[in-house]
């Protein structure tokens, strides 16, 4: 079960013609797919399209009613290869993943698919993760479209435009026998908006018919001589067909304006930012009226030369608004304009920064500069000579830079991965630092304080692979990390299988938290959940042994820091050769809480016995050295000021968000920190026997306490 449930929202997928849909971009895309008569959908989760997978998963009943098959792909490569169903048959299919990392993984399949071409519409919905909040390397997906000759659609970031783009893309794909990538930027994926719906369409060519009446054509297979033919076909047939369709359908949009000797060309995704910047300059309004003509490329590859020429004809200057680098489109436009002898001056990266997100500030500055340069007469006074914002230079505000602490993401309260790294810290104290190859997943938070563990990441599931070279005799072994998500994505072969085959002597830690947790808690083969449409509960340990690993340890309770530490120490020091594999399993706390909370609440309602656990710190015995926090970093373990005049430092404190995982107590024990931690078990609806026994005990204890208190000098605050 995923972290976020769309069970209520997916009802909106049933809306029909003439109705209005309101909601998130992701959900709108799903609705559009159904309106397009898609036969199958698949994909691999990852921000910002994780929710698309979650929506599809929650919508399975609706999908199957319509005869749409939904596949939770093992990786992006699997997802892309799924589109092979559209090669020979007039079947529409769509897959989704995160870009550009997902495209990197999928590129082999995508290249093959693009070479042979498709019959049915094949759509790849990519969630572009560029700029603020991104968790990946900053790259463009555009290059993939160019190298494999598949089309890149980049619609205006509003729900209606995105939905229209889905419809158009399927037709574009079919008209040009080419797969189409639909790029949705991170903010657009989560944009809330509305659009007029159409009826859902059942696929006209069911998958079962293809199975029962298969057809083949060797010309569609990537093998010489067909592959040479594909290369020519791409240029001579598919490209012109695509350009023709894009133009005829009007996929790109032109907005006229009265200041027609200049103009702005943009990727569709940049449109709202451009309008906002123009609005601030008094040249556009909130309803999209603009005085400067705009050419919006909702298709950024291929470029429709004649549209560009038409737009630029008669203009003194145009500005290309293209986010990311290199500036592929700007370069192409130079060629288009030069070939057509259009004299308009082309601006782009001379006014915009080459690298980085086009934030409101960047957009405002560059568009402002462009207009000041060519038509400063149309600007209001304020925009012609913008005042420097005085506020930002105020000393009191500048001083904040030293006050406001950075707040990077980290392990959640009660995260089962935290104790793994606490144990690593303890081993580090004993055996010294090791080379630790990190991986993609929540466990990558180990590289941040308080753990500061991990040297490199080379891609999802590639932690152990990235330690491959460190397979030489040495006094220390390498440690590599991998999550259960990465493990099933490719790590079983690229990491474990590789280490077995090459007789790697390092330690591999597989963090098994029962979900693909970082992407939102989707199920994977080793998930413990009962999933009605997927086969789960396949132990990682069995898979690891299956590829030949001998030294394998399963840890079923990661919170036992001492056990975790001892196992790591053994792995690092054992005489046994070959990879040492530790599978550290405990359920992701975020998902566990979501799973358990309603059950507990229901049990409480029924009056059943319930134990609530939480941890606490005895203020009296806490000396305020914060060693416990340095080995934990739990959000619920914090510090608080104390009124004790003999204490200088704030004391440790556990707040009410504690879920009682026990990590702080275990660390205090394993690291021999201090006796200040306690666990409080609060039992609601205790059994009669339990309650009576407790009363007797507490009476005994109370008597002893009173006896000693009476013999001691007591002060006022003692009683308080």
């Amino acid at each position, binding site marked *: 079960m995923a972290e976020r449930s769309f069970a209520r929202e997916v009802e909106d997928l049933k809306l029909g013609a003439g109705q209005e849909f309101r909601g998130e971009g992701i959900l709108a895309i799903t609705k559009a797919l159904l309106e397009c008569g898609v036969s199958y959908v698949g994909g691999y989760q990852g921000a910002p399209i994780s929710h698309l997978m979650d929506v599809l998963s929650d919508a399975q009943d609706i999908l199957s009613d319509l005869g749409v098959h939904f596949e939770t792909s093992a990786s992006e490569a699997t997802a892309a290869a799924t589109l092979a169903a559209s090669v020979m048959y007039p079947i529409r299919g769509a897959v989704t993943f995160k870009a550009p990392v997902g495209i990197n993984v999928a590129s082999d399949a995508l290249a093959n698919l693009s070479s042979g071409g498709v019959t049915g519409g094949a759509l790849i919905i990519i969630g572009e993760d560029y700029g603020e909040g991104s968790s990946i390397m900053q790259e463009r997906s555009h290059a993939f479209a160019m190298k494999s000759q598949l089309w890149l659609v980049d619609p205006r970031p509003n729900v209606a435009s995105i939905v229209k783009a889905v419809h158009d893309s399927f037709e574009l794909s079919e008209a040009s026998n080419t797969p189409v990538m639909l790029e949705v930027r991170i903010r657009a994926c989560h944009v809330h908006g509305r659009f007029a719906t159409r009826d859902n369409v059942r696929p006209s060519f069911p998958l079962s018919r293809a199975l029962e009446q298969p057809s083949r054509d060797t010309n569609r297979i990537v093998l010489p001589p067909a592959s040479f033919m594909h290369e020519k076909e791409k240029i001579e047939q598919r490209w012109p067909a695509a350009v023709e369709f894009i133009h005829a359908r009007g996929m790109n949009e032109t907005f006229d304006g009265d200041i027609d000797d200049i103009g702005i060309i943009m990727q569709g995704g940049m449109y709202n930012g451009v309008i906002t910047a123009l609005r601030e300059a*008094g040249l556009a309004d909130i309803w999209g009226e603009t005085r400067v003509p705009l050419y919006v490329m909702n298709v950024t590859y291929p470029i429709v030369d004649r549209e560009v020429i038409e737009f630029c004809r008669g203009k003194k200057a145009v500005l290309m608004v293209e986010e990311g680098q290199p500036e592929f489109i700007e370069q192409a436009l130079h060629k288009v304009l030069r070939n057509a002898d259009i004299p308009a001056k082309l601006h782009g990266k001379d006014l915009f920064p080459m690298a980085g997100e086009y934030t409101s500030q960047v957009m405002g500055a560059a568009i402002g500069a462009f207009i000041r340069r060519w038509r400063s007469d149309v600007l209001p006074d304020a925009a012609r000579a913008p005042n420097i914002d005085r506020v930002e230079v105020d000393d009191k505000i500048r001083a904040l830079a030293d006050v406001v602490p950075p707040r990077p993401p980290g392990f959640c309260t009660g995260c089962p991965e935290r104790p793994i790294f606490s144990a690593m810290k303890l081993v580090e104290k004993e055996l010294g630092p090791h080379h630790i190859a990190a991986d993609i997943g929540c466990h990558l938070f180990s590289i941040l304080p308080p753990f500061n563990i991990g040297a490199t990441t080379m891609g999802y599931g590639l932690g152990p692979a990235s330690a491959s070279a460190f397979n030489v005799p040495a006094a220390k072994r390498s440690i590599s990390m991998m999550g259960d998500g990465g493990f099933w994505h490719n790590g079983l072969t690229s990491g474990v299988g590789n280490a077995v085959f090459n007789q790697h002597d390092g330690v591999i830690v597989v963090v098994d938290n029962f979900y693909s947790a970082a992407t939102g808690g989707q199920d994977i083969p080793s998930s413990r959940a009962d999933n009605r449409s997927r086969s789960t509960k396949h132990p990682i340990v069995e898979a690891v042994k299956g590829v030949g690993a001998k030294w394998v340890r399963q840890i079923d309770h990661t919170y036992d820091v001492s056990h975790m530490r001892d196992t790591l120490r053994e792995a690092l020091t054992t005489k046994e050769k070959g990879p040492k594999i530790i599978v550290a399993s405990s359920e992701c706390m975020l998902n566990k809480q979501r799973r358990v909370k309603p059950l507990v609440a229901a049990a409480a309602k029924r009056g059943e016995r319930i134990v609530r656990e939480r941890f606490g710190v005895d203020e009296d015995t806490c000396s305020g050295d914060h060693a416990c926090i340095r080995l934990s970093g739990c959000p619920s373990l914090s510090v608080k000021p104390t009124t004790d005049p003999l204490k200088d430092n704030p004391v440790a404190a556990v707040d009410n968000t504690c879920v009682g995982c026990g990590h702080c107590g275990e660390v205090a024990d394993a690291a021999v920190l201090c006796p200040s*931690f306690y666990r409080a078990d609060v039992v609601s609806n205790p059994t009669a026997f339990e309650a009576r026994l407790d009363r007797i005990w507490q009476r005994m204890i109370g008597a002893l306490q009173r006896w000693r208190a009476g013999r001691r000098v007591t002060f006022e605050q003692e009683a308080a």
Partner: protein
Amino acid sequence: MNVSVAPTSVGLSQARPISIAVLAMGGQGGGVLVDWIVALAEHRGWFAQSTSVPGVAQRTGATIYYIEMIAPDASKPDRNPVLSLMPAPGKVDIVIGAELMEAGRAILRGLVSPDRTLLIGSSHRSLAMSEKTTPGDGTADASQVYEAANVAANRFIAFDMAEIADATGSVVSSVLFGALAGSGALPFATEDFETTIRAAGVGVDASLRAFAVGRERATATLKQDPKIKPTAKPPLAKRFPKLAPIGHAGYDALVTRARQLPAEAHGIVAAGLQRVVDYQDVAYGAEYLDRLEAMPHNATGLLQAFAKYLAVAMAYDDVIRVADLKTRAGRFDRVRREARAGDDQVLAITEFFHPRIEEMAGMLPRRLGERLERSQRLARLIDRGRKLRTTAPAAFLTLYCIAGLRRFRRGSLRHAREMRHLEDWAQRIRKFAAHDLALATAVCEARRLVAGYSDTHSRGESKFDKVMLASERLAGRPDAAEWVQRLIKVALKDADGAELDGALRTVETLFEGA
């Protein structure tokens, strides 16, 4: 003269959307608040667009949400507005900080501007990692956020919303939604806000309670004279007991004696005296005063510092002390309160102990302790984690009996060592006090480096010893006290002591070539 006149934007609508930025910590309800705001606007027939950058930032990191909303234009019934997907510095109408430092972050990012921005912030703190991991006090200074907010914001509403959320059984988002309603910044009625909460259907009653309180507090803030700027809550004051008789002959005699000390020191002396008497007995209190009286009385700064750290040093944390504190009735009550256990609920308290041979041998008479301390076999037997359920008789009695060993404490190995260490320190202070009071005070304060248990304690003690050595080296220099203060500060900043070692090397360079 050629006067250029900017052309009027004839035909362009002058309507502006209302823009709202919400800065929150991932996974703590920012999304709920944003959904409410959007639903509220749509309920009133407005267009609303929200965006966020979730990704991994959802895992406890700083997250920003952005909303724009606008009323439909009757003259353009078929047009949708083009709303921005990200906030622009200086162009945001309402900024909501779900925590004080997140409000500060909004100011830093330039989102809060004096000409238009209403800043609503919850004044509670959820400490960032860097604030918590410092061995000393790494907590950021809240008052600076207030000062900046009063410069940057057009109006600033701040109060502790976590407290209200807690009291009403709801979440900060509900209180923020209330504050937004109370601010009057959105042209919607209170009932519209409440309808939105009801329609969402989750925890409605608690949310409405929190909403109401938040709304009232915001309204009250706005009714005040705008010249009265919100200020940070003063840091929690130390509570000094009175140096007064309590009706216990032995203790009262000590009070009479202590009152001979300068009046400025009475508060801290009372705290110290009570601590050591509580720790051991009245005679121990007399020892405390003996040591205190041996210090020069003319410098009250030194006397106060010594009164404080002497008490801490004398009331060192040993197994007996911990057992004593863990078995007191007051402590049981406190845990019950903190764990929010009701009277009809059974509470079980489990302690996490990991005694080492050092601690166990420390309780024994000196000779015996020294011998057993070296026993590997015993060490293996003792050195392991123990979970003791103090609310059950067996564990309680064990700890209760250990606490009862208090009367043998003076003869113990640990006591002998602690007192030797203490005397060494006190003597050094007295020595420096003769010609450099500031240095003596600094050396006195260095005692705060010794904290914690086991390894942490040894590391602290080693830092303390290094600073003591340095103080001997520095004595006689006019800046000796400054240097020692600097060393203490550095030592408190990092746990491993690398920074202290660096500073000590710098101290060494002071003497090079001399």
